[in-house]
């Protein structure tokens, strides 16, 4: 069965590009655009990997990450954070809150694909 990736991101064209390359790579990609309702989506149908943008409408990616790690259903799901802000403190914050990987925009498609593969296979 294809592994499920949930992409929580609010930029429609980025969603389309990432969805396309991961689908081509054999993953089933679900998307969600709003920070406030992201947890409900995760808990309703827990994915194998979450790609989580930091700057979202509603709650931030950091807030969602904290909730993901606090809930037993989602605590172990690998999370890859995306951010347009590459400051060290953001990276440190993401890793401290329990992110498995941190990618700074703009990233390459190959980078996304390789990291998703390695996180899901780990």
């Amino acid at each position, binding site marked *: 069965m294809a592994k499920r990736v949930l992409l929580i991101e609010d930029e429609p064209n*980025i969603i389309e*590009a990432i969805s396309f390359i991961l689908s081509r790579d054999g993953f089933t990609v679900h998307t969600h655009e709003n920070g406030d309702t992201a947890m409900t989506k995760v808990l309703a149908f827990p994915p194998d990997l979450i790609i989580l943008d930091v700057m979202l409408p509603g709650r931030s990616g950091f807030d969602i990450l904290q909730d993901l790690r606090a809930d037993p259903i989602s605590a172990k799901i690998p999370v890859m954070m995306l951010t*347009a802000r590459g400051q060290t403190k953001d990276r440190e914050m993401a890793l401290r809150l329990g992110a498995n990987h941190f990618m700074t925009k*703009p990233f*390459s*498609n190959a980078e996304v694909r390789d990291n998703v593969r390695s996180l899901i296979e780990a």
Partner: protein
Amino acid sequence: MPVIGIAGSRIRERRIDKGMRQADLAQTVGISPSYLNLIEHNRRRIAGKLLSEIGRALEIAPDQLTRGADTAILDGLRGAAAEMSLPVEIARTEEFAGRYPGWGNLIVAQAKRLASLEQQVQVFSDRMTYDPELAGSLHEVISAVTSIRSSASILVGGENLDADWEARFHRNIYDDSIRLAESSEALINYLDSSKADGTPHLAPLEEVEATLAKAGYHFPAIEEKGQAAIGAVMQDAGLRGAAAKTVLEAHLKTYAADAKEMPFNTFSSAAATTGYDPVQLATQFGVETAAVLRRMSCLPAGGEHPPMGLAVADSSGALLLVKHVAGFAMPRSGAGCPLWPVFTAFSRPNQPIRAEVTLPGANAQRLLCYAVAHPIGTIGFDVPQLLRSTMLVIFDQPQGVAPAISVGVSCRICPRDSCAARREPSVL
């Protein structure tokens, strides 16, 4: 009072400048050369008749030999030493400032300039991190670039795309390129407008204080027309930051309300008549004491009124407004001395405090302070009580009714070792 650290050195300099031998000067004033040598090396105090005779022999007024350095320069030099944490002869600060006042001023001015530049860097850094407009523009640019890069990679990456997908990614790239152009332009406009007039970026409170200082803390238009003049004053101020505008507008509204309750001419003469007694004035005008303190600080100095400084703080210790006048300074950043009445007033809300204070230094003036902390915001059960403290500092009005409280600027440059309020060791 003679200042041992300076007078001897000045006598020596003056004697050498006049080409006079030590033995000749000693003979002229009737002392031994060895005693004069001790005086010149600041090992003996000098005052009275001997000082007058040496002054006469050196053709200089005695007070020019003993006059101490300006307190502001001394504090500035100590502050500069504290900031750099380099080993300097702190114990000889007064002597240095007395002997070389020009160099002293230069060091203090450079230290201020350095602090100002560091603050600008901090403001820029904060702006880069927290300015929502800049963060939003950068986010837009980076998001568009990310999307273009991903879509373009798919198109050129050898993916076997059908015509529909190809058209979609082309369309996405086109849309994102427009978004990128618009967001880049917005970003450039923003950066251009920030540097257009070449003036340094200031924190909102500093921007407001600079505006108030420029106006002498007095606004004749508001005195005359009240609230109706605020718009014109705001326009003249030409503040750039939205936060600074909000702070200034709030200040001017309070100013207008105070001016309405205490009309300028009546208040000005009443202040002088009562000897600047804020409690009497509060009773006379039927207003709270803090309003009187604010109003007094807006009386133009230089005429009939003494110079007056003002500090307003919230109970976290943050200074919300400081009117600096020569001889009165409080640090804008970092913790100040908690012994200033503006802070001690928080322990007795609504009760006016009168205290005389002295700053460290041989020439420090005795300052008269009035302070009061009033509750602000909602008062009720289960609601934290917020307090705001206002302190007026009056020069040339010491009453001597109680011993002066020894205050400082901040612990790092305060020499009072035994102070119970000390938070950290002094560099002095």
